[in-house]
């Protein structure tokens, strides 16, 4: 925990891990141990989340979009990550509604469509374990943009944007169902995929996949989540 906190507090951008080509696509380094148990180090699931963000200029239409957003919304943007020609804007959750309203209404942005919301669980990022990721599409300008909001496990609340983008109704229900993220202000936040009386939120990383041993020609094969892992 404390190790992780110090990572969060660092303000200097952290370098991304080397491309697999630089360390071998099979990930062997050092002893060449192939058992999968040799390299037991604590990993940060997505280093881009902890880094301070991409420095300007971002390139393409990204600079203009971020400028317009930061002018319209006061202090809502935490950081901007440009990776693989995709723009991700991390937004403080209390500013989310302002940001998406601007995205929809500003004529220079005009992101008509929010293509749902997707949860991602990073148990190692203390204080920001749950991420809600919103892909946006502007048909007018033919642009895409991703908004990312984080919430701690202890307080899994994110404002609902159904009032701005009605299409997110079911998507937010799905993310609540799978991650336990509470979308405040949603008209009817109920489970959508799992049965109503289900315990737990199955896409979280602390929720086991389940499964039983299978016997095949005398050998016993463990369920997928108990097999040897290489990463």
């Amino acid at each position, binding site marked *: 925990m404390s190790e992780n906190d110090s990572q969060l507090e660092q303000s200097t951008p952290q370098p*991304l*891990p080397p*491309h*697999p080509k630089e360390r*071998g*696509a*099979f*990930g062997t380094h050092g002893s060449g141990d*192939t058992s*999968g148990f040799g390299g037991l180090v604590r*990993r940060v*699931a*997505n*280093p*881009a989340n902890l880094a301070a963000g991409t420095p300007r200029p971002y390139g393409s239409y990204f600079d203009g979009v971020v400028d317009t957003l930061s002018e319209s919304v006061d202090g809502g943007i935490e950081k901007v990550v440009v*990776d*693989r020609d*995709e723009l*991700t804007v991390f937004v403080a959750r209390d500013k989310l509604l302002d940001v998406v309203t601007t995205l929809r209404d500003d004529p220079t942005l005009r992101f*008509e*469509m*929010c*293509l*749902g919301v*997707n949860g*991602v*669980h990073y148990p190692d990022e203390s204080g920001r374990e749950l991420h809600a*990721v919103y*892909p946006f*599409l502007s*048909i007018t300008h*033919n642009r*895409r943009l*991703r908004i990312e909001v984080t919430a701690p496990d202890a307080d899994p609340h994110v404002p609902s944007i159904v009032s701005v*983008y*009605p*299409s*997110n*109704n*079911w*998507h937010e229900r*799905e993310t609540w169902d799978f991650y336990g993220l509470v979308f405040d202000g949603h008209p009817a936040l109920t*489970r*959508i*995929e*799992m*049965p109503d009386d289900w315990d737990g939120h*199955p*896409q979280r990383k602390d929720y086991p*996949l389940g499964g039983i041993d299978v016997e095949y020609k005398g050998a016993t094969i463990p369920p*997928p*989540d108990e*097999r040897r*892992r*290489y*990463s």
Partner: protein
Amino acid sequence: MSDDVTFTAGVRETTEGPVYTVSGQDWDAMTAEIVGNERVVVNMGPQHPSTHGVLRLILELDGETVTEARAGVGYLHTGIEKNMEYRTWTQGVTFCTRMDYLSPFFNEVAYVLGVEKLLGITEQVPERASVIRVMMMELNRISSHLVAIATGGMEIGALTVMTIGFREREVLLHLFEDLTGLRMNHAYIRPGGVSQDLPPEGLDKVREAIVWLRRHLPEYEKFCNENPIFKRRTVGVGYLDLTGCMALGMTGPVLRSTGLPHDLRKSEPYCGYETYDFDVPTRDSMDSYGRFRIRVDEMWQSLHIVEQCVERLEQPGPVMVEDKKIAWPAQLSIGSDGLGNSMEHIRHIMGESMEALIHHFKLVTEGFRVPAGQVYSAVESPRGELGVHLVSDGGTRPWRAHFRDPSFNNLQAVSAMAEGGQVADIIVAVASIDPVMGGVDR
């Protein structure tokens, strides 16, 4: 309970009031005797022949008029996204192809494009592999639209449309089997290319299928376009205008039925779509009839693209990236003892190259590593924008794989399309959305 209850299946008391089960032929008796003029809440599905799979509709009726309609989903949830987190990136294809089972190639391509973007090898995918992907997707678009038209026709009583629809689809499924080995759930498109090159006589079979489709596709237009019964059931039914489509995030034929020619193949071309000649058909009737006409027009456009693909595929070439750290090593072939790795490959790894053996072993057991990060890749599936959000932690398995399935999103429009209309029109409205529950619930 009074003794004069005539319906057969009975009634049971619940905390919300009595729940009546009608079993057919007894609807009049029930409404007259028990309900009178009160509003009725009807549960339709999830096991109902005209709800396109296990879709549950909860309808509040005032006579024959629907005052409120809500869709219930989740009956086909299989946890595909969760399962993918426990398999290699390559094995993920085998899972996601099973989501929207009417358009497996689109699921595969959307996912594989995301993986390739994460790997940074989008540019290295061989030309021939991209052309094969486009050909498969467009043939798949035809077979998917055929089912949409066939089942939609069946649900309004046009049984011949159903039988001919499945007849043509069968031709395409046979073709898929010839080309990929499987009729459905192909797992044919893999990160870096496709799993196998076309078989020697593959292109001839595609040409035969094109000839068949060119002869039989006009039948749908002849059966339906000016058929007065068909038009009375579909014209003005399932109405959703552009404002509604935008608010509800609709894509695909429903959006194009408002006249907006939004198609990802044109606006954000992938797999080289910008090099093909095709049009984006639209209608401005905003109803089920317009969506039917769009689907028929799209089948013709797809056929046109397939013909261009066949032309390009006459030149041989590689179908997998050259990078041996990513390309799936083995090729399957049929030997005297059944399907297995090709003898040529076995000879190579067992007798010639130690590196090839190591690559084979490592790729098959561990899989390749994908640099950490996240991407969103989208393709124009027969039902609209199929988006994939992939997160990698730098390992051999996805940290998160999420599919934005168009059916899931578009089903939200059932309420807007159905409320205020007749009960029978709900069926037409749902059919015009063409939801596939395997994709909705994943």
